[in-house]
């Protein structure tokens, strides 16, 4: 972006110096060379033809157990109650919750697995609806992360750093690719009601951090008023609102001329977006006109605003309106105890609606260029946390391996990638680090993750920090 142009040739000291050091001609020239100001974004993105134009990220917060859902390990059944061999665990540090356990007995529930679809994908009977869309799924069983606790792990997969204060995935994409629909935010966040709540979710997970603040995820709440303070207060009509915004924009621009703070531009953009959203949001979110078969497909829960199923339906409606990045969060997977009973409830929450979303996108032709991702922040261990009985056990955090799935634009269908050992403890084939996973999704969106950077406090930042390789084997 040409800073000279942006500030109407008012330059501050640092910009002036860096501009003159790099050659005055270069700045003028760069404005001629950097693409076209009439295209959707000014970052010169994508780098190459994208496979995916939109993303739906069904985030399963709390870490679903891969061993009960996707990663079939008959060995655990065979060795039920026996000690996890020390050679498998190796030097692995376990969380404080099981570090003091005297024994690590291998745990296995009474769930059966089967292979589904042409790709013979392993799925447990906790996911009967997933079984019916197995031909669309690309299951990656070898994702691994660096953090062992929820907050750093969620922050890591969302922002590429455990420490936070970095932009969320959706913010990067919003900043990089912009929005096609001018009346809806590029990055929408849907929190869903769960049957159980464990780990909290913070707004920092969909924060823009150092990116301009219009790229912050816009949170849609469950209920009648999905976006707080979007509606005009009583007594304020459209004309008054418009006049007020015009005057406000004028004031902001005046201030901008004196303080040159880019955040003011963001503020102007956000006010304008909110104004346009006043009509677009109720139209888009209105599910009252959806026919009955929709609720048969997504499940009866979809009629209840704020449920996972209702949010999957909303995600489809947002994507239909060309929203770039929809992120859904579902809490409650952190099953340290009572796992066999609790995981049934959670699986029931998400199974049908997740699968329905895929089919619904498919019949509308949207699955061709929309990528759907389902997964949590890490996996769960193969040994029991707490007392192990045939009917009850718990599983502790396990960052060394876990399963996610993707479906849609540009990824292989009916495909399984990566392998873990017989205990589901270590990856033995094709590991996918969180940064690899992020790089791959960026690649599907036509972005070279190494070239997509933002300079902040003297350093160029990127979502994948200094790592990440595109997992080409799962791409079509």
């Amino acid at each position, binding site marked *: 972006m040409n800073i000279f142009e942006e500030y109407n040739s008012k330059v501050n000291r640092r910009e002036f110096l860096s501009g003159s050091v790099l050659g005055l001609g270069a700045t003028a020239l760069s404005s001629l060379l950097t693409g*076209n100001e009439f295209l959707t974004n000014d970052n010169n993105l*994508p780098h*190459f*033809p994208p*496979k995916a134009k939109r993303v739906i990220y069904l985030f399963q917060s709390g870490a679903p157990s891969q061993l009960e859902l996707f990663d079939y390990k008959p060995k655990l059944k065979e060795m039920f109650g026996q000690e996890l061999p020390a050679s498998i665990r190796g030097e692995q540090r376990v969380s404080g919750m099981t570090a003091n356990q005297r024994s690590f007995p291998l745990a296995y529930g009474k769930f059966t697995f089967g292979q589904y679809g042409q790709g013979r994908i392993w799925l447990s009977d906790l996911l009967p609806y997933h079984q019916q869309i197995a031909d669309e799924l690309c299951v990656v069983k070898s994702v691994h992360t660096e953090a062992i606790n929820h907050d750093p792990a969620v922050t890591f997969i969302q922002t590429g750093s455990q420490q936070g204060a970095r932009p969320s995935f959706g913010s990067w994409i919003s900043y990089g690719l912009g929005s096609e629909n001018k009346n809806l935010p590029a990055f929408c966040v849907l929190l869903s009601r769960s049957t159980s709540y464990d780990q909290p979710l913070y707004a920092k997970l969909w924060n823009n951090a150092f990116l301009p603040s219009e790229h912050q995820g816009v949170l849609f709440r469950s209920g009648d008023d999905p976006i707080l303070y979007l509606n005009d207060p009583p007594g304020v009509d459209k004309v008054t609102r418009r006049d007020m915004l015009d005057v406000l924009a004028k004031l902001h621009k005046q201030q901008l001329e004196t303080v040159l703070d880019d955040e003011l531009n963001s503020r102007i953009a956000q006010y304008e977006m909110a104004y346009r959203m006043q009509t677009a949001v109720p139209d888009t979110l209105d599910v009252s006109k959806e026919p009955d078969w929709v609720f048969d497909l997504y499940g009866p829960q979809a009629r209840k605003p704020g449920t996972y199923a209702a949010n999957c339906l909303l995600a489809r409606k947002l994507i239909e309106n060309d929203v770039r990045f929809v992120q859904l969060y579902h809490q409650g997977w952190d099953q340290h105890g009572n796992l066999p009973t609790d995981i049934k409830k959670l699986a029931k929450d998400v199974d049908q609606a997740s699968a329905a979303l895929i089919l619904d996108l498919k*019949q*509308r032709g949207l699955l061709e260029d929309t990528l759907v991702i389902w997964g949590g922040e890490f996996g769960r261990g193969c040994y029991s946390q707490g007392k192990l009985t045939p009917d009850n056990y718990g599983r502790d955090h396990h960052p060394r391996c876990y399963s996610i799935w993707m479906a849609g634009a540009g990824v292989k269908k009916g495909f399984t990638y990566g392998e873990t050992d017989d205990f589901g403890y270590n990856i033995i084939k094709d590991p996918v680090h969180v940064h690899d996973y992020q790089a791959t999704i960026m690649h599907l969106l036509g972005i070279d993750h190494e070239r997509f950077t933002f300079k902040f406090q003297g350093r160029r930042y990127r979502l994948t920090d200094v790592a990440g390789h595109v997992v080409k084997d799962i*791409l079509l």
Partner: protein
Amino acid sequence: MLPTELIGRFHPLIVHLPIGILLFAFAMMVFQRIRKIDIDVVIGFALFSGALCSIAACVAGWFLAQSGEYDAALVAKHQWTGIATTALAALAFALKRFRWVLMVSTVILLTLAGHYGGNLTHGEDYLFPKKKTAQSVNIPNLDSLQTVELASTTDSTATNSGNEGVPQTVERKTFIYRDYVVPILENKCYSCHSATKMKGGLRLDTEAFIKKGGKNGSILSPGNPNASSIFSCLLLPPDDDNHMPPKGKPQLSEQEIAALHFWIKKGAAFQEQIETITIGAGSSPTALAIPSLKLAELPKAPSADSLAAKGSINASVSRSSQEAGILSTPVEVATPAALAQLQQNNIIISDFGQGSNYLMANFVNVKKYRATLLDDLKSINNQVLRIRLSNQPVQDDDLKKLASFKNLTWLNLEKTSISDAGLSHLQNLPNLEQLNLYGTNITDRGLLALPKCAHLKTLYLWQTKVSPTGVEQLKKAMPQLQIVMGGFQFVKPDSMGAGKKELPSGNKQAL
């Protein structure tokens, strides 16, 4: 282009300043000694400016080296001699006492650095060209070929004597492999694919190894350059993982690519070929003309993604081959005026990435659709590959305006007002791959127009008036077409066993 890249390009210009200034400073030192006059101030100034310019040249050179267009080893030599020269020149300015020693070394290093720089620009054999032998021929100049031996079948003196004007038959011996292919491989490929290094399990240094191929199988298909990855990998975009030689290594010139193409096309012979040719009157018999290739006109190499998907470098069927093919054919850039006009009308235009002038048009923001908007779009008809008209009241006649969009690959017409009559206007779109008609009034009759779009791959017909018979007929006419009828419903888990059920869209009561 990045500003740093631009600065890099100035290196060859800036670099001559320190060369001149420092040499002149040295000349002045000699002059001072001979004439015994005091010009220390001037020499000091010259050394100062020389050192300063050297630093500038180093900086620019650094940026230029980042382009990766040069041989890394040679760059390193040039870089370090250059930096050493700069350091010595700066010392010579600062330490007056050792100025003579320092300046003599500066001049020596300067010469060396200059020589390496020259090698980088003009090639290592520019100054002292190697003698041409049969084994190590330099990259042949294809315009004036010297290595072809000729023997006239009739009279060996005939060509030179009085027979001019009469067409004659001659026997021509060519050894394309030895004379053209080997030198190219030697210069551009051996560093990674020979006895010392066998990347991808591939060696290119003998006939047997070339025929054997690498770990991804055979690389040579005589007579068919595009099916030979030894050739097709050269044409992939530089960013592609399978592009050869890899980014940063010296690339093949267009002539060299043409030579490889010619060799494979002619059967990829590893022996000398003897052919009988007829030479027209007056034409020079000595030239074996290798037809020059226009790279843009070559059939497109498959994209890396599709190669990776097949796990084999030889597999070449990409799912969106039509679009990929168009994308790799150059097109002129859309005019800013046209784009501004479209932007004004709320038509969102996005592109396919850097270096591509192709575009996608999305009408999602259009509040008041009118047919004239499609006229505006015509100003970029060659650039547009995808149009999304979803939910707009598009009429049948509007689709006539799309006839000139020859490159159109994706068309979204779902939930528009079109009917069968409209589809007949689409039959002139030769590259159409994906057509979304869901939620329209299309019937079986409309589908009859579709087989004209030979490359159609995916068709969405959910919530249309198409009947199962119509679909069957279309499937017969277009077996490769994937038809998505939609209307999916799940089998309830308690009645599990069957897969998902696909309801025919005519079965409306089920929806």
